[in-house]
């Protein structure tokens, strides 16, 4: 499974785990992961421990999620980034929009 979704018991934390390449092929699945989210004020955790690559359309997907999760009020953490992925996030300065760990 390139993308799995886990919800905490109270439904407040949604964890999206990406495996392999985080690119345009995941677009549909990624959108579905949050499009039907009922909790308006959910926190999101994007776990990239198993992701080996990320392209600019993945950055676009993160922006979509951010908008959906409330824009500036969104609470989204991107965790377990490899150095290569961290570099991509750094060049785009996405640290300013997401919690990157």
């Amino acid at each position: 499974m390139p993308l799995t979704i886990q919800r905490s018991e109270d439904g407040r934390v949604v964890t999206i785990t990406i495996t392999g390449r985080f690119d345009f092929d995941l677009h549909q699945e990624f959108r579905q992961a949050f499009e039907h989210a009922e909790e308006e004020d959910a926190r999101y955790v994007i776990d990239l421990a198993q992701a080996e690559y990320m392209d600019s359309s993945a950055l676009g997907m993160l922006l979509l999620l951010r908008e959906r999760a409330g824009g500036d009020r969104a609470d989204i953490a991107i965790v377990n980034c490899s150095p290569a992925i961290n570099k991509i996030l750094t060049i785009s300065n996405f640290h300013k929009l997401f919690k990157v760990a």
Partner: protein
Amino acid sequence: MAEGNNPHSLPTKLPGGASTRVLIADDDHVNRLILKAILTKEGYTVEVAEDGREAVVKFGSWQPDLVLMDIMMPVLDGYEAARQIKQLAGDRFVPVIFLTALSDEAALARCVAVGGDDFLTKPYSRVILKAKIDALERVRRLHYTLRQQRDELAGHQRRLLQEHQVAEKVLAKIVHSGNLDARQIKYLLSPMAIFNGDMLLAARKPSGGLHVMLGDFTGHGLSAAIGTVPVADIFYGMTDKGFSIGDILATINDKLRVILPTDLFFAAALIELDATHTKLMLWNGGMPDVLIRRGDGRVDTLPSDHLPLGVVESEQLDRGVLVIEIEAGDRILAFSDGVIEARSPEGRMFGLERLVARVTQEAEAEALFDGLLRTLGDFVGGGELGDDLSLIEITCDPGWASAPRAEVPRAFRPRAPMRWSLAIELVPEALRSIDPLPLVMHLLMDLQGLQEHREQLYAVLMELFSNALDHGLLRLDSALKQTPEGFIRYYELRKQRLAGLDHGCIRLEIEHAPEGTGGLLRFTVEDDGAGFDYAEVFAPLQENRSFFGRGIPLLRSICDRLEYSGSGNHVQALYRWGRHGPPDAAG
């Protein structure tokens, strides 16, 4: 027959519509009658031919879906008729079933050799006949569908290619109408780069300086290309009117926020060279590091420190530019990520480290650009570079930029110089809650219309003000900022001390007076702090290369005069704009 030479001119019936049309070619009257009776009863539409020649003619005029072909016939035998029919059918699949009493293998093999698809041996079994026809009919319909889809795809592809070619021509006219041909610029940009979302623009400023933008839209194809038009429009239009890169990028951001969907954005590096080619201003949002190769071979790397354009609203957009001293012979290099991510046949990435090393190692500055292209070509193998590799080299050459354009169409000009002054005093409460700089900049622009000087003036105000606040009132030591850990510590301390600040104030005064055809701005900033040893930080710029220790040397290079007095808590900076009168008139 003339029509038959072109298989594409044969109209193709839709499958599944009218009943399957079967042509029977047999010279035996009885055979024809029997077959026709069987097939008509099964619901097929039937036509008959009495020899091979007639079969070929009827094939052309009646266009059956399937042919039943006797072998031994007068005029033209079944083999030859089948061969001609297959030729006429071209890439349409029209099954031919041979009707034969023959049982020798050589004859049957010949049926296949001329293009036959099956045999039926006499006497005919109604069941086998129908089974064979239906089986071949299924194959024919499948073939028809595949061919239809193939043609459709090929048609789409042709149209897409045509549209791309037209679009490329139109877009190239709009997007690449600037000054990339300037003799201080070398660049690489594939004609199809637009469809990768890459764009590279250069335009002379009315004042004689240069604006360059290297950008990259996310996505590919038309969706990536479409945004290039408004971006180019804004870039050229505003450059021509004398706006600075800060204003230009804010306007582009506004536009892209409106036209791009949330998940598309535009990474861009905007570069401004001033008229004297002594200062470089850079705003890098999401592009790979911009490099400056100095005359002595050192290489400075200037990483992206902003979000790409089209991501956040303009109020949130940080339009702060880096201001960097440059000298004649310095070379500024900017790249698309295609350069960094170019891959060797083994799949290794070219990478920034290799790039910086290559730029550093080149002994001959003049050969830098071509050498870099060769290295890249060798790295990816075969010397073939992809569509998504865009790069530019700008050589700092004050001689090139010395002459401002004589008369330029400008909708925007500085206002006639006037005499005015303004003063603002900020106490801790105000310092905590507002950033006075945008406000003051706004007033400056409104009062005197100095958009062209915006970045310089902002840099002056910013440095004067933050020196007064950070070092004057908050007593922070800028030496802290020399290390990354110290840098963080510095800003933590700053936040703490600002929150706890309970006395003191900063006074900012700006006076403007006409001078020649321009004006003289006098900034005075005073704080209640203990001051600092200003002599020490007045070290020459050349000895002070570290990025963050540059505040005061930078101020000195922008301002016509910079004077500290008192205990270092009072500073005055003079900034001249416009053409100055003769020295004696300037006073």
